[in-house]
């Protein structure tokens, strides 16, 4: 299963993937704040 279920939209999912993988190309760890979504549909900021 992909982590798409953790995000609000396909766009957010793609944006997160791009941010993570491009940063992890250059360094071992990355930290960022990003809106997510719970199973019950509630947004987590």
């Amino acid at each position, binding site marked *: 299963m992909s982590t798409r279920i953790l995000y609000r939209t396909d766009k957010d999912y793609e944006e997160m993937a791009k941010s993570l993988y491009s940063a992890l190309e250059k360094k*071992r*760890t990355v*930290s960022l704040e990003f809106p997510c979504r719970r199973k019950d549909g*509630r947004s987590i900021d």
Partner: protein
Amino acid sequence: MDITEQINARNKLAELEALEASILVAIPHAVIGLKNRRIIFANYGVQTVFGWKAEELIGQRTRRFYRSEGDFKEIAEKLYTTLAYEQTVSLEFPCRHKDGKDIVCMINASRIGETLTDKQIVITYEDITDRKQAEDVYKTLAKSSQAGVYVFQNGAFQFVNHHAAAYAGYGEEELVGMDSMSLVHPEDRATVRKNAQNMLSGKRKAPHKFRIITKNGDTRWIMETVTMIPFRGEFAVLGNSMDITEQISSREKLEDLEALEASMPLSVCRTGGSSLPTTAFRPSSAGRPGTSSA
């Protein structure tokens, strides 16, 4: 000799070790492993939380994470006593940064394996100092507010200020842990749930009104707004309320008077054969459009 399985097993082990190392690096909290109360591993998060480098901690006791010898003994007793019969334990506890600053940590500990052999445990420390300070700010604001303020989480009151408790006729501590919906008048519960959900999702901006049943069985009217806040690391609902029972009661009396007045035959207002303007006997009409007394 076929060593394919050995090579596969070794590769699998290397993969697992790489995964474990990446997990420990990615976790922002401090993670340490203890054996006989000595640190056997520590992740990079220990530097973020406590200021100590991982290599400074190996072989050491965790005494340096706490404010005093007393705290160190207290936390050890709590952790090992609980882990003797449970797999995990969580608690908030005061800790100390390398620079001497006091912090508050959420400590989660888990024993390694089924029993507490050799006191082998893993502990994570999350610095929750900012969160605790924010909660203290909520409480300070709530205590000084003239409105009824409360926080409920998982259906129960977690915090109630003096005014909110007084509306319901309870003491502040009596309400903590109580099911918040149990105070709401049974006929209003469904509407309250719906309105609150709409407010929390941003669909409704206006406050809602509903009835509560007080401790001594009286009915009182409350006007309330709710909003979502973080509290003790989870979502909670912050309620702001006012007791509007007197307003409702006054309005009902006014409506009764207006209804009575409307039902009065105009002849009642005529005395001694002289006809007076009826508005002179109708104080509630003052200010209505077209009823100027000037």
